[in-house]
């Protein structure tokens, strides 16, 4: 939901942004001796002048506390001669410090510690440890909402803010022509031990905003669950209470409702490897307005109790440089108790963002959104349930993990004032398109360019992503039906090995002192093969795949080893019929396992692993190569919206404008600007000023 803040707050924020910018520039031009490449700083006799630890998420209190602890440990290096062994040991200690909270079921956690030296002059140098840790949810990181969050709250995407058992307070405030000067904030308490139980409760949230013309108060209990296996990758639920009063040009629009919703996202599915999102919601309460009944359409009432059920589904995907989300929602509403359906509302929302790099940590970002709605009134509908447009987004469902826009957003008209149709206030259909382009002119990267531009660093990042993908691929390969058939023979293998072992033992007893080395070699190969078979029997997924493979030619070839030692070498000399029979039985089982194992569709497993890890890879790349701690730059935009029933003169509007976007990931996100309304009715304003400010956690 778009928020607006006061000019005073904006000036304060701008000032702090400029201050940070100035500091950054000063740091960049500080006189320093350059450190020559290819130098052994120990042999060259350098002394460590200072030691510094950098972490992009140092503004988080708990990260800062760990860095402070670590600083105390590394400070002993300062003033001492540069010794490689000491520098490396400190890096290992920093890696072990773990700058990430434990976060439930994330499959992959990445930790980078980069050691560098700078300011080499006067026989001294400064030692810098850069630490970047990240735990990325493979499916959730591919959503449109996660992409948006990266820009303003990268620590959330990196999994660095998942600390529980503490209160977060985030003030908000602003100004908008309809809503006037308003203020408020958001409080959230994340519970310790969240994420367990049949209905896990993660957080309690309270949000409030108020002005002389509006108020909005919401309270929510929310929970979620991530799963590492199965079709559903993530599910969340929310119990939400909302009491709001929003101004339009003629009346207040009031809502007082309680809702319960459940939504989920699957793992990537189908040929295009797209995750599906789906959910449902039940809500009930009262919708009110100050409209006179005579001013409204005959099927519309100014106020009424109501109940509604919503179903919604969609998909989202993240490509290398863009992200796409498509959502559809249907609302079945009633103003009376019972099964009568008074209205059916359809909403379709398509969002696309693309980032076009134009320099280091500088990209042109183009956001597009196409939204349409249709209200089919079969009985009577409260006017508040009709579509009201303007410079304010109305979400179809609560929460931040999935946003579905449900009203015509046009930034050149104040909130809720785009509503007049041939049938009176409130539309029954709309289509709206919004385009925004932004580029940062001044920025400070999260990961220093010295690191992100280091070729070896880039290569090692790719290497580790490859390794992680290989691990995930083994899990997918272990689901292949042919692998299950191969693994299903493990019990037979163990039984055959036991019989062969007994036959060999009997043969040895019958031939005391003969062929001792051959008997010993055979028994040892049987023991080793059985150890792998035991491990395969008690393990699952990728681990089981590795142990089964160890029996086969693709890996340690343990069963061939048994055949070679016991039948090929030993029984060729002793000609024991029992050893021959049990050896043949084992060979047959082995052959069937080899055949099934060779039929595992590794290509499919590879594709699935690539698809799952692609989101992690793209998110990691964005954190390292795209995102900024601080950025400021211009924004331009174009809006189009049509509401009905109305002809183009009454129901079509445009918006053209621009502004400024300032992001300080440690404190504030601010956008301000003005959109002109070139095709307006006589009483409509010529445009709308907008300013939105969101502050981060005050207690950080």
């Amino acid at each position, binding site marked *: 939901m778009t928020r607006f803040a006061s000019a005073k707050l904006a000036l304060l924020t701008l000032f702090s942004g400029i201050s940070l910018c100035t500091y950054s520039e000063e740091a960049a031009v500080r006189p320093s*001796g*350059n450190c*020559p*490449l*290819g*130098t*052994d700083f*120990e*042999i*060259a006799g*350098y002394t460590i002048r200072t030691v510094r630890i950098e972490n992009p998420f140092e503004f988080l209190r708990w990260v800062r506390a760990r860095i402070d602890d670590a600083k105390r440990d590394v400070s002993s290096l300062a003033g001492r001669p540069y010794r*490689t062994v000491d*520098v*490396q040991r400190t890096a290992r200690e920093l*890696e072990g410090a773990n700058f990430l909270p434990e976060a439930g079921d*994330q499959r*992959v*956690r*990445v*930790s*980078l*510690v980069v*050691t*560098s*030296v*700078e300011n*080499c002059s006067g*026989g001294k140098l400064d030692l810098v440890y850069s630490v970047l840790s990240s735990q990325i949810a493979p499916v959730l990181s591919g959503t449109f909402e996660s992409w948006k969050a990266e820009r303003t709250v990268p620590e959330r995407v990196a999994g660095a803010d998942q600390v529980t058992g503490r209160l977060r307070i985030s003030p908000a405030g602003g100004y908008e022509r309809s809503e006037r000067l308003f203020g408020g904030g958001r409080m959230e308490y994340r519970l310790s031990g969240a994420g*367990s139980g049949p209905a896990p409760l993660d957080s309690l949230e309270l949000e409030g905003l108020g002005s002389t013309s509006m108020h909005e108060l919401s309270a929510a209990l929310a929970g979620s669950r991530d799963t*590492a*296996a199965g079709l559903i990758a993530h599910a969340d639920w929310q119990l939400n209470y909302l009491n709001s009063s929003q101004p339009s040009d003629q009346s207040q629009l009031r809502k007082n409702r309680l809702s319960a919703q459940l939504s989920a996202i699957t793992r990537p599915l189908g040929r295009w490897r797209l995750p599906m999102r789906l959910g449902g919601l039940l809500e009930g309460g009262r919708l009110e307005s100050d409209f006179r009944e005579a001013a409204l359409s005959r099927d519309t009432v100014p106020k009424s109790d109501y109940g509604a059920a919503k179903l919604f589904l969609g998909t989202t995907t993240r490509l290398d440089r863009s992200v796409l989300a498509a959502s559809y929602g249907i609302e079945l509403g009633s103003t009376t108790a019972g099964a009568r359906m008074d209205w059916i509302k359809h909403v379709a929302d398509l969002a696309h963002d693309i980032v076009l790099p134009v320099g280091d940590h500088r990209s042109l970002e183009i956001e597009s959104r196409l939204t349409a709605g249709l209200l089919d009134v079969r009985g009577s509908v409260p006017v508040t349930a009709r579509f009201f447009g303007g410079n304010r987004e109305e979400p179809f469902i609560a929460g931040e993990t999935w946003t579905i826009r449900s009203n015509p957003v046009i930034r050149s008209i104040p909130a809720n004032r785009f509503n007049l149709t041939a049938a009176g206030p409130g539309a029954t259909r709309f289509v709206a398109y919004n385009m925004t382009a932004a580029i940062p002119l001044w920025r400070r990267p999260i990961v220093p360019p010295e690191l992100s531009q*280091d070729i*070896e*660093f880039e*290569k*090692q990042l790719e*290497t*580790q*992503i*490859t*390794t992680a993908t*290989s691990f995930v*691929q083994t*899990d997918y390969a272990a689901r292949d039906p042919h692998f299950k058939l191969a693994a299903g023979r493990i019990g037979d293998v163990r039984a055959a090995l036991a019989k062969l072992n007994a036959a060999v033992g009997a043969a040895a007893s019958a031939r005391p002192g003969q062929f001792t080395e051959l008997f010993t070699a055979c028994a040892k190969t049987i023991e080793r093969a059985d*150890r*792998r078979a035991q*491990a395969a029997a008690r393990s*699952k*997924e*990728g*681990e089981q*795949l*590795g*142990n089964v*493979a*160890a029996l086969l030619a*693709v*890996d*340690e070839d343990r069963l061939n080893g048994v055949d070679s030692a016991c039948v090929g070498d030993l029984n060729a000399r002793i000609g024991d019929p029992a050893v021959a029979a049990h050896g043949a039985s084992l060979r047959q089982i082995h052959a069937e396992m080899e055949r099934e194992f060779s039929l595992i569709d590794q290509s499919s497993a*590879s594709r699935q692993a690539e698809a799952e890890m692609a989101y992690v890879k793209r998110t990691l790349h964005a954190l390292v190569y795209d995102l900024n701690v601080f950025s400021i730059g211009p924004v331009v935009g174009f809006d189009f919206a049509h509401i009905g029933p109305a002809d183009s003169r009454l129901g079509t509007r445009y918006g053209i404008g621009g502004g400024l976007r300032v992001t300080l990931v440690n404190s504030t996100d601010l956008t301000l600007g003005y959109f002109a309304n070139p095709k307006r009715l006589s009483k409509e304003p010529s445009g709308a000023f907008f300013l939105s400010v969101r502050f981060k956690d005050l207690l950080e």
Partner: protein
Amino acid sequence: MAKGSNTTADALAPAGGAKRVVVGIKVKFELNSKNGLRRVVFGLEKNTQGDDVQWKIDFELYERDKKTDPYGDPLVKLDVEVDTKLNSKAEDTAHNGLTPRQAAHALGPAADDAKGTITGEVDEDDAKDTVQATLKKK
């Protein structure tokens, strides 16, 4: 190990050149099993001393009985020194990452033999051989 430059600190402070020089990178991936009871850590460490580059792979295995338990200390921790001059396979692994077969071997036999050293079922040398064999898989 061949040493790099032997010039003195002051003599090697030219006006041009890199402002900050990276002398070491540690990248660590933690991979958690689907049931949340096992964690495998593959750490890769590069250290630069003059013109010399040294690679080291850390292998750690963690297990726990319940998801609500902390992992605690690693059940097994093995360090593999990679000699880039003598072992091209190790170098390939260090530079290209583990293949799926290598990953399966590490998760299965390597981890199992490493655990076996704790119970005495497997000699430590045999376990190290099994871990080293990870590098030989295609």
